[in-house]
C-alpha cells in the first residue's frame, strides 16, 4: 500500500485515538471511523503540514453538497491518499 495511506492512517490513529490496526484503505473516515468534522480539522492540519499542501475541504464539501461528488471519493482513505498524491504532484509541477 502507498506510503501516503500509511502516513494518513498514522495521523488519524494519533489524532483521533483510533487503534491503527482498525484503519484500512477501505475505511470511510466518517462512516466507518466515526470522525466528525471538528476532528477532521485536526487531521487536515496534520496532513497539510506533513505533505506541504492545503486540503481543499471547502471545495470537496461543496461538491458533495451539490451532488457533484460522493463522500466516498474524498473520505475513503485509499481515495483520500490518491487525492493527496494529486495535490502533492500538482504542487511539484507548479513549483
Amino acid at each position, binding site marked *: 500500500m502507498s506510503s501516503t495511506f500509511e502516513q494518513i492512517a498514522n495521523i488519524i490513529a494519533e489524532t483521533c485515538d483510533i487503534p491503527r490496526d482498525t484503519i484500512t484503505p477501505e475505511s470511510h473516515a466518517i462512516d466507518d471511523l466515526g470522525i466528525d*468534522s*471538528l476532528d477532521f*480539522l*485536526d487531521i*487536515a*492540519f496534520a496532513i*497539510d*503540514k506533513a505533505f506541504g499542501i*492545503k*486540503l*481543499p*475541504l*471547502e*471545495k470537496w*464539501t461543496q461538491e458533495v453538497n451539490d451532488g457533484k461528488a460522493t463522500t466516498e471519493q474524498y473520505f475513503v482513505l485509499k481515495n483520500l491518499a490518491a487525492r493527496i498524491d494529486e495535490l502533492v504532484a500538482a504542487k511539484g509541477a507548479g513549483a
Partner: protein
Amino acid sequence: MHLEYFHLIDRIIDLNIGAKTITVEAQVPEKNTIFEGHFPGYPLMPGVLLIEAMAQTSGWLLIALTRFERMAFLGAVKEAKMRGFVVPGELLTVDASIIHEGSGFAITSAKVRVGGQLRCSATITFPQVPFPNPDLRGHMLTMAKRIGFPQELMAHD
C-alpha cells in the same frame, strides 16, 4: 470589557496583516457580579473568560485576514494554560498569531499578559464560514469601529 454583552476586547493596539498578528487590550472591570461568585472574598477573572478573550482576539485577526467575508467560530481549545491569576482592575494585553490557515478553518496561538507577564496561553481552532446573515456582519463592522479596527482594513460595501 463589557462582560454582560460578552464583549471582552476594548481596543486593537496593533494589527499586522503581513505578519498575521494582532495585539489588543482588555480592561478587567473593578466590579462585576461575576466576582461576587468567583470567588466570594477572593475575586478572580474566570479562566473561561480569559480563553474567550484569546478567542475574540484571534477572531478579530481572522476577520481582518478575510476582509469581513468570513466569521470565525470557536471550534477547539488546546493547550490552554492558566499560568497566573488575573484579578479585577488589571489591564490585559492579548496577542494572537496564525499557526495554520487551512481550507475553511484556521488555528491560532494566543497569549494574555499583564504588565508584560504571561498569565495564560492557548492554541485555538476556528471553523471559518461566510457570515450567516447581514445582521451579524453589520454588528461586527460596528464593533470593529468601536475597538479601533484600522479603517484601511475595513470592508467597504
